[in-house]
C-alpha cells in the first residue's frame, strides 16, 4: 500500500512534465552549482578533497531529509480526500514519502558516484556506512514528519513551521561549510544535530574525514526522534479522520 501511494506520487509528479525524471537531478545540481560558486570561489572555503564532492555529499542527504520532512509532515493534509474516503494505516502516507525520496536518492546518488569516478577518489570498505547513514536520515526525517503530522492534526497552522526548520536547519548542518571552520569548542555541539552526524559519518566513509565521537549523540538522537514520532503518531491515528 505504501508503494501504491509512492508510485502514485512519482507518477503524478512526472506525468506530463517536460523534463520528466530530469528534475530529480536538476534540483540538487543547481544547489551544488550555487554553493560551489559562492563558498568555494568567493569565500575560499577549503576542503582536503574537491569542494564539489564535499557539497554534493551534503546536498544529497540534506535533500533527502528535506523531502521526507517537508512532504511527510504535509502528507496528511495533502491527502485529506483519501483519509476521509478510504481505510488504510495512516502512517503509510508519510512512509510513502520516504519511499519516493529514496527512489529519487538512488538517481542522485548515481550522479555522486559519477563524480567520484571523475575525480578518481578510491572507495574503501568504509563506504558501506552509506546504508546506516541512509537509514538514519530516513528515520530521523520520518520521525520529525510524524511528530509534526500528529501536531498538525490538532493545530493546522503548525505546518508553517516546516519551512523555518528546514531553512535554519541547513545552517546548523555542515552541508556547504566544513566542520573545520567552526572553533573546536563549538564544533562538537554541531553533532547534536542528527543530520550533521549522519552527513559527517558519510564523509568519513567516502573521504576518510575524521569523525568526532560526539556524533554518536546525533545518531542516537535521530533514532529517538524516530521512535517518538512513531509512538506519538500511533496514539493520534484514531483521531485523524475525525479532525481532518
Amino acid at each position, binding site marked *: *500500500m505504501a508503494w501504491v501511494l509512492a508510485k502514485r506520487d512519482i507518477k*503524478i509528479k512526472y506525468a506530463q512534465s517536460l523534463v520528466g525524471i530530469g528534475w530529480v537531478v536538476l534540483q540538487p545540481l543547481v544547489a551544488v552549482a550555487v554553493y560551489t560558486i559562492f563558498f568555494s570561489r568567493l569565500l575560499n572555503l577549503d576542503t582536503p578533497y574537491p569542494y564539489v564532492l564535499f557539497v554534493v555529499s551534503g546536498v544529497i542527504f540534506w535533500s533527502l531529509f528535506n523531502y521526507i520532512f517537508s512532504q511527510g509532515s504535509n502528507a496528511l493534509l495533502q491527502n485529506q480526500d483519501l483519509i476521509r474516503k*478510504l*481505510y488504510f494505516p495512516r502512517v503509510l502516507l508519510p512512509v510513502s514519502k520516504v519511499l519516493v525520496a529514496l527512489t529519487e536518492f538512488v538517481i542522485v546518488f548515481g550522479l555522486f558516484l559519477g563524480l567520484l569516478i571523475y575525480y578518481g577518489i578510491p572507495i574503501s570498505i568504509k563506504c558501506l556506512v552509506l546504508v546506516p547513514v541512509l537509514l538514519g536520515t530516513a528515520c530521523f526525517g520520518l520521525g520529525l514528519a510524524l511528530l509534526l503530522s500528529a501536531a498538525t492534526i490538532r493545530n493546522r497552522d503548525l505546518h508553517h513551521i516546516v519551512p523555518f526548520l528546514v531553512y535554519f536547519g541547513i545552517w546548523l548542518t555542515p552541508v556547504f561549510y566544513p566542520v573545520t571552520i567552526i572553533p573546536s569548542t563549538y564544533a562538537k555541539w554541531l553533532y547534536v544535530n542528527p543530520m550533521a552526524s549522519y552527513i559527517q559519518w558519510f564523509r568519513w566513509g567516502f573521504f576518510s574525514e575524521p569523525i568526532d565521537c560526539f556524533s554518536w549523540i546525533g545518531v542516537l538522537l535521530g533514532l529517538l526522534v524516530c521512535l517518538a514520532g512513531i509512538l506519538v503518531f500511533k496514539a493520534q491515528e484514531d483521531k485523524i479522520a475525525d479532525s481532518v
Partner: protein
Amino acid sequence: MIGDSKILEVKGLTKTFTRTTSQGKKEAFYALNNLSFALKKGQSLGIIGKNGSGKSTLLNIISNIIRPSDGEVLVRGKVLSILDIGTGMHPDLSGRENVFLRGELLGMSKQDIEKVYSDIVEFSEIADFIDTPVKHYSSGMFLRLAFAIIVHLKADILLLDEVLSVGDLGFREKVKHALNAMSSETTLIIVSHEIHTIREFVDSILYLKSDKERSYIFSPKIDFPFDKFTADLSTIQSEEVRIYAAQDVILKNQKVDENDKGYLAQFTLEIASVSKEVYFGIQVFNDLDIPILTSVSQELKALEGTYRVEVSLEESLFGYGQYAVQCGLMFQEKEGWKVLPLSTEKMTISYGEKGSESYPKEVFNGILQPTLDWTLTLTNPS
C-alpha cells in the same frame, strides 16, 4: 450453517461529535446512539434517512475510517467502501493508470486488476480514450470509468454511499444490472436519501431518524409503506394553528353497496384553534415511493373542535399493487407551506377483489388504470 452466518454485526454503536454552539461553548451531540443490527450472508441493506441522520457516519465506522465512541462492529470478510466515486484518481494520469491506481488503493492486487482490466475498459465504453489523461475526459466519461472499476471489485461486503444517482440513464441501467449481478456474491450496503432509488438492490432496510434520540428502524425485509411521513406534532404547529390531537388515517374499504366501490380515507382531528386558511390533502404513493396522486380540499377557515375528515378514493383509478395513502393538513407560513402529515396507511389493489375488472390488472401495469369511457363509432358504414 455457513449460509446462515452473520457477515456483519453492529452492536450498541454510538458516535458522538463535539460541536460549537453559537455561544462558543462546546457540546457533544450524538450522530449515532446505541445502534444495533446484523446482516446475514447474502442479505443486502439499504440505509435511508435525511441529511444529518448519521448515514455517512455509520458507513465511515463500518469502513474503519472513524472509530466509534462506543459499541462495536464485527465484520466477517473483506469490506470495500465506495464513499466517493473517484477517490484517489488523479487528473494528470491516464485512464489506464487510474484504473490500476484506484484498484490498488481499494486493496486489489495488480494481478487481480489485470484479470478484469479488459472488462473494465469494455464496461466503461471509453476504450479509445483509455491512454488519455483523465483531465481531458468529460465528466460522463470519468464517471463511466470510475463505475466500471467499482462493479468489477471483489469483496464480501461492498458499501456504496449515494453514488447511484449519477450518469446518464442508459449507463445507470448498466450499473444497476452489474450491481444486481454482484449481489449474489457480495453483500451490498447502499446509502440513499430515498428508498425508491435503492429498493431494487436491497432486501432489508435501516432507517435512521434524525430526531434527538437518534432512533432507528431496522427491518429485515422491505415492508411497505415505510413510516417516513410520521411526524412529530409539536414541530409543525404554529401560533395560528394549534392542534390537540390527531388520529391516524383509517382506510376503509367501502363495500356498502355495489356502486360505491372506493376506499374511504378517514381521520380525526381535535383542533384547538385555527385562525388562518387550512387545507386538507391526500397523497397516494406507489411502491417505488413516487407520489402518483395528490388532491387538496378547498380552503377551510376558523376551525375549532373535533372533526372527522373523510375523502374517498376511487379504486378503479389504480393499477395492481401496493400503495401508501397519506392524509394531512396544510397551511401557509411565512417560510412557505407547512404540512402536518398523519401516519400512512397501506392500500392493496389486487386482482379479483372487486370482480368488476374484465382484465387482470397485474398483467397490464400502468400506474393509473382508470375506467375511462370508450366510444366505438363505425366510420364507413357499408
